[in-house]
């Protein structure tokens, strides 16, 4: 039955639909639910992927990475550059080095597997941090923008490391870097030209096709050089973020395509390879890695946050929020599994830690270290919206 491509597609999309419905009822991000659905499908239905599912999943992760890069507001990055750069770099580097060291020296993982662990557990979930900022009314404060900019820098470090650490240093890498540099330089201009000249009310969606073309092309060069397609996707998003600030409908359309058709395949696939017996068997290691991730983020971020004159409670709050992670953590782990750098047991450990890191630091931060912010925001309807 599963050889029939239509029935297979119906099964996967059915699982995605169930995940959407559960996500809406529980108020939890659909990505997390899709991973859990994937875990159940992998362990109890023994669902497997196929060539075309792998392609959709890979493209989904690339598009998600592109959207992550495109969501930055360039102005907020520029206005807090020194502080956000310092906090962001340290927030990536300290966990990457210490978590990798823990995997290698304490758990005797191979060097490459330890590098994957370091990359996967050095990430920060910009979206989780942003939602907490918005709930607390901090989204438009200077502190909020500084923290978000630092999160982008952290993820940039993750993507850069993933893109280059396992690449073959040969002529193809040089070609990839050269093509990437040229395209990134001209992309803002080309994108504006496509939107103005060909887009706006065209049913054929040339702007969307243009961006897809760029992502496919750069992804092709990246993978030929044994790099990872998410690296150019993130950079493309970053360089045209300024264009998207003016054209939000294009981002919304691309997000709709991603969430309806592509990212479900990615997140369900990510869950498929998590082995439930391995979770129970490695509970101690999982908790160790979670503790190391949180401690290393704290160690790296807290002193710097205080250096940049954050109040102690705000600095602790920031440090814990930056210990969150989800998307890039799963992307890094899946990269490691697909390229046979880590095995399924190690993958299970890393993805479980990544999922827990989306939840645990946020709960602790909100329970114990929430700074009191009193702000009034007046939306256009005139209702007063306050944060309590």
């Amino acid at each position: 039955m599963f050889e029939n491509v239509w029935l297979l597609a119906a099964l996967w999309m059915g699982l995605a639909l169930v995940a959407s419905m559960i996500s809406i009822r529980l108020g939890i991000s659909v990505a997390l639910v899709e991973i859990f659905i994937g875990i159940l499908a992998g362990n109890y239905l023994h669902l497997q992927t196929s060539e075309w599912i792998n392609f959709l999943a890979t493209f989904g992760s690339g598009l998600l990475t592109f959207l992550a890069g495109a969501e930055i507001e360039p102005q907020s990055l520029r206005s807090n550059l020194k502080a956000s750069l310092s906090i962001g770099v340290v927030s990536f580097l300290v966990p990457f080095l210490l978590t990798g060291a823990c995997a290698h020296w304490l758990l005797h993982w191979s060097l490459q597997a330890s590098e994957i662990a370091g990359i996967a557990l050095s990430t920060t979930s910009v979206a989780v941090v942003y939602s907490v900022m918005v709930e607390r009314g901090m989204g438009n404060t200077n502190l909020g923008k500084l923290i978000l900019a630092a999160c982008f820098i952290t993820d940039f470090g993750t993507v850069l490391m993933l893109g280059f650490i396992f690449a073959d240093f040969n002529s193809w890498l040089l070609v990839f870097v050269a093509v990437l540099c040229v395209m990134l330089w001209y992309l803002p201009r080309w994108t504006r030209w496509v939107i103005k000249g060909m887009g706006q009310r065209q049913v054929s969606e040339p702007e969307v096709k243009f961006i897809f073309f760029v992502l496919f092309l750069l992804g092709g060069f990246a993978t030929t050089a044994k790099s990872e397609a998410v690296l150019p996707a993130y950079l493309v998003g970053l360089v045209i973020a300024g264009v998207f600030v003016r054209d939000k409908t294009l981002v919304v359309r691309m997000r709709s395509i991603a969430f309806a058709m592509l990212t479900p395949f990615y997140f369900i696939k990510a869950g498929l390879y998590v082995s439930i017996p391995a979770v129970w068997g490695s509970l101690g290691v999982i908790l160790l890695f979670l503790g190391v991730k949180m401690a290393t983020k704290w160690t790296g971020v807290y002193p710097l946050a205080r250096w940049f004159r954050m109040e102690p409670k705000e600095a602790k709050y920031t440090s814990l929020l930056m210990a969150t992670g989800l998307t890039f953590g799963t992307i890094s782990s899946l990269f490691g599994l697909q390229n046979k750098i880590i095995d399924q047991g190690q993958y299970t450990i890393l993805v479980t830690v990544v999922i827990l890191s989306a939840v645990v630091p946020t709960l602790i931060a909100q329970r114990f270290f929430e700074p009191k912010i009193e702000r009034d925001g007046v939306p256009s309807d005139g209702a007063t919206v306050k944060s309590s």
Partner: protein
Amino acid sequence: MYSKVLAAYDGSPLSRNAVVKAARLSKMFKATTHALWVVETLPHYPTTVGEVREEESASHSYATHLRRHVREIEEREGHEIVFEVLKGNAAHVIIEYAQKIGADLLVLGHSGHSSGLSKLWLGMVADKIVDHAPCDVWVVQ
């Protein structure tokens, strides 16, 4: 008997009933009536910043929609209602707001539009409020 009545309102039929009854009771006692919507619909553990922004924008639109409902109830009952929108955990915020304004009666629906988990345990928010409210509580069915 009551001088300040607070009704929790999230647009659900039960909570609308709560606001109407709060207005009628306040009119009898010549009390002031407050209606409060607590925004807690931001997705937990989101994947993209865009998800959060869209939800936030939807919250603003919904607040306008609820304000219109409250005005309709005001006109029909002939009694002024002060409408407020706050963000956070529904039970905590309602209790804190009741304390802040010195409410002596809280009126709520038994279960509103609260998340699937709350609905599953039938009126978890209402239960928490009843346990910790600083004043009388009227749970409307």
